[in-house]
């Protein structure tokens, strides 16, 4: 099929990520944007750009009709949905199909099946793929029904949004007294994130690892995986750091083999086409369970790109064009190790509360093995309308040790000024003995990690900090004195404020 002009129905780092590959392929790129995104990089990097509407997602990036209309009006051949927003909305994929526009992703039918987490679980059970025990076979449960089911499943358990993804609308419940308010919270969050307040229950598997497989499937029946990603570093089901490959599976190659085959089988069970991800939980006894399938490009796809050399967005477009995958399963080679840190505008010292404001300085690291995917720049404003992801730091090393040390080095260099970021979280995490040993599961961040504890272990420099603070206090006094007494005194009262500054005055 001919694809010459692609509309990227997204914003932020992922819109830019997709835009980059499109431009490298010589495609004409079309951006869409909300009022507050007029100056965003995805608008500026595109050949064309059209306004969707006001800032709130429901008025802009979730407006199916408007996006389809723009596509029709401007001769768009294909739409790339990115992740989040409409990417896993089967009605949207259907609307594209109906309008004769190629949807760069799976069929609306595959999205529908996998997008409704309950239907997905049933489909997997039929295909003989293990799932986490829960409320399978029962849909649209009321609060009362959920409470009854919960007692059967037992605690701890998880409430999950049927339309879910990305940890939104998800809540852990440890005892039945917490259940009711947790259901309410999960429903509210799900409604706001996906426009659907259906939830279901799953047994909470403790000390599990979250490991996922990247799938690619073309229209010619070729379905392969590109190896796994270890995503157990999470907080409230939000991934914070991912690695490829998984340290655990490196020591359990038969398990990796089996999980990879199962992932491919799961994708085939829904006649999956394009890129997708099968998420598994692995328990302490090496049992693994299908968790869900993300029927879209994943936030953490770059670490797979780093260890395989494959541009996953390029493959998505190949597939959408009806071509064969560029590699076969046998040709797949995993080369080295990659780590992604999600840099969020969140205050790790204050309950990970989001931070909004203008980024006055974004000094990103670079050098060997370092990739940054971001939509921010100096003077960029983080607004409360969209998710708090500032950038993704993706680091490659020839071994896991090198990747970790390189990540540590890169984090040291990274400076973000104007808003509060979670860089200190990553800096503390990366130096934890358990992390370095690869000895962690998906409870690690919530249960075994705290900023204070992490900092207790490491070498600190309170004396140096005291000097910094005292000199800053002195400087502020001098600066104000200087403004007040500018006429009376020369610049010599700046004597503490830097030799170089004086030289260049």
């Amino acid at each position: 099929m001919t694809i010459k002009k692609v509309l990227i129905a997204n914003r932020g780092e992922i819109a830019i990520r997709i835009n980059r590959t499109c431009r490298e392929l010589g495609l004409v790129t079309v951006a869409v944007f909300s009022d507050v995104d007029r100056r965003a990089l995805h608008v500026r990097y595109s050949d064309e750009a059209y306004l969707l509407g006001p800032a709130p997602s429901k008025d802009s990036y979730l407006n199916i009709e408007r996006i389809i209309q723009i596509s029709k009006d401007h001769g768009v051949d294909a739409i790339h949905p990115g992740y989040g927003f409409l990417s896993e909305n089967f009605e949207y994929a259907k609307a594209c199909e109906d309008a004769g526009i190629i949807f760069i992703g799976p069929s609306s039918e595959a999205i529908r099946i996998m997008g409704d987490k309950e239907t997905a679980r049933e489909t997997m059970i039929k295909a003989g793929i293990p799932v986490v025990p829960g409320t399978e076979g029962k849909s649209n449960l009321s609060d009362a029904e959920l409470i009854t089911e919960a007692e059967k499943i037992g605690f701890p358990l998880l409430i999950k949004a049927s339309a879910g993804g990305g940890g939104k609308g998800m809540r852990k419940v440890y005892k039945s007294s917490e259940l009711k308010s947790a259901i309410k919270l999960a429903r509210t969050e799900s409604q706001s994130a996906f426009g659907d307040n259906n939830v279901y229950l799953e047994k909470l598997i403790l000390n599990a690892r979250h490991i996922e497989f990247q799938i690619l499937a073309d229209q010619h029946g070729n379905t392969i995986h590109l190896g796994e990603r270890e995503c157990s570093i999470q907080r409230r089901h939000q991934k914070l750091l991912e690695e490829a490959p998984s340290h655990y599976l490196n020591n359990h190659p038969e398990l990796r083999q089996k999980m990879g085959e199962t992932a491919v089988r799961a994708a085939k069970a829904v006649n999956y086409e394009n890129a997708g991800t099968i998420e598994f939980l692995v328990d302490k006894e090496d049992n693994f369970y299908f968790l869900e399938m993300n029927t879209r490009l994943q936030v953490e796809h770059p670490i797979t790109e780093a260890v395989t050399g494959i541009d996953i967005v390029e493959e998505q477009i190949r597939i959408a064009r009806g071509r064969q995958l560029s590699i076969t399963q046998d040709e797949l080679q995993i080369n080295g190790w990659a780590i992604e840190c999600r840099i969020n505008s969140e205050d790790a010292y204050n309950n990970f509360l989001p931070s909004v404001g203008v980024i006055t300085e974004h000094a990103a690291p670079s050098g060997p093995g370092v990739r940054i995917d971001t939509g921010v720049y100096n003077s960029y404003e983080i607004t409360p309308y969209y998710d708090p992801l500032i950038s993704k730091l993706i680091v490659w090393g020839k071994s896991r040790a090198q990747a970790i040390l390189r990540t540590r080095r890169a984090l040291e260099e990274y400076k973000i000024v104007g808003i509060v970021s979670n860089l200190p979280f990553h800096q503390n995490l990366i130096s934890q003995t358990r992390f370095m040993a690869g000895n962690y599961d998906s409870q690690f961040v919530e249960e075994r990690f705290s900023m204070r504890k992490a900092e207790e272990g490491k070498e600190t420099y309170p004396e140096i900090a005291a000097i910094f603070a005292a000199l800053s206090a002195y400087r502020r006094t001098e600066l104000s004195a200087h403004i007040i007494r500018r006429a009376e005194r020369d610049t010599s009262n700046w004597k503490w404020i830097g030799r170089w500054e004086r030289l260049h005055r």
Partner: protein
Amino acid sequence: MKYITTIDEQEYIVELIEPGVVKVNDVEYFVDFEEVGGQNIFTLLINGESFEAHISEGEANLWKVLMQGTLYEADVIDEREKRLSEAAGHVVKGSSIYMLRSPMPGMVTNIPLNVGDVVEAEDVILILESMKMQNELKTPQAGYISEIRIAEGDNVEQNQIMVVINPKED
């Protein structure tokens, strides 16, 4: 100039002797302190060792020093201020009124408490929806709710005072 700098309850007397020389708890250091690019990033050479920090000024003599991934909260007062505050008598810690402000624009989706309710430190006071997340806002100190200035469903601005917590009456 002499500064009394307190970090994690440890006191450091930082004395500015002459340009390029400071004394910390009576040990002398050669320092070279420079700002970089007007962005509150500072570089410090101290006896040749190189440090970089992002420094922001908080309220009431509090300086936040972010260095090598660790945040130091430094209370800095100069000698004169210290004498003045000592003369005025100490403020008893933890006995002040706490104003829960909105850390960002958002919508209040849940207020599980009522005026008069007693709260402990780290209790959840309300849920604020922002950036597509339900954020639990907690109180850093114990007390009782003396005022709730918003209602469920309200949109709030950044820094808007939402709930007031008074210290417990002993």
